[in-house]
């Protein structure tokens, strides 16, 4: 039973577009939203999502589950404003955003996450009912 759908509803690579398509209000709030690259793994008892979100912090991470939608946001503050003027900019500074559809087989209240070295690690435990179970066969 697959409980984690990796084909995203909005799989765009254009900055801000995923935000725009989902919620124009969101775009208005923050015009610079970037798609964080992710790896998704499935273990026997859980799913693991690893996302590159450099420049945010544990406090800047927002993970929400709304119905069957898992949303991960990494807020990135403009850290250049106080330093000086930008004379060369090869990448933009802005929030990271990804979302996935998840099935009913995940214990949403037990989702946990850590953030270290710019990588967000989200653990999504499976419901015991969808975990593989070995049935003991008794002799007659």
């Amino acid at each position, binding site marked *: 039973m697959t409980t*984690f759908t*990796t084909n995203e509803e909005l799989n765009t*690579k*254009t*900055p801000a577009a995923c935000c725009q398509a989902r919620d124009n209000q969101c775009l208005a709030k923050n015009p610079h939203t*970037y*798609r964080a*690259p*992710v*790896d*998704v*793994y*499935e*273990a*026997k008892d859980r*799913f*693991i999502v*690893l996302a*590159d*979100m*450099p*420049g*945010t*912090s544990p406090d800047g991470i927002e993970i929400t589950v709304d119905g069957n939608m898992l949303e991960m946001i990494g807020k990135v503050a403009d850290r*250049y404003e106080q*330093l*000086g*003027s*930008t*004379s*060369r*900019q*090869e*990448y*933009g*500074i802005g929030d990271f955003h990804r979302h996935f559809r998840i099935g009913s087989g995940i214990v949403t209240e037990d989702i946990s996450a850590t*953030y270290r*070295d*710019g*990588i967000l690690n989200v653990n999504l435990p499976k419901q015991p009912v969808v975990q593989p179970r070995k049935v003991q066969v008794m002799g007659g």
Partner: protein
Amino acid sequence: MNTQALLTPNNALNRTRYGIERLFETMVPSLVRNIGLSDSAIGGPALNLVENDDQLFVEAELPGVAFSDVEITVADNTLTVSGTRVLSAPDDVNALRQERSDFVFERSLVLPTQVDVDAVEARMTNGVLSITLPKVTESRTRRIAVNEA
């Protein structure tokens, strides 16, 4: 074949070409952004340069890169940043999606001003490498005492 027709701005070929150019204009910067590579130096991380009166700040996003795996040199007013990223996957798992990868990087940047090489500092915070390079102040006016012969 009427070649003139091919050159008119509204024909299908030009529209297609325009469409392809638009596609590249849209995709390349975001691709560059998403895989962290500079379009001017594939193989190196994208760099941002911020400066004030006293210092230059160079920054690169290197999530998952250990600071001990980064080498930074400043020579002939050129900053070079190199290193490797080695990711570790969890044990006993099936990969459903893999957009992240290991990489080796090296990038050089000619600095816009002279810097004090001995005072360069670097740190890695939340996957962002920040290098601070103090500018060398303009040679101070020095008063030369002229002694009477």
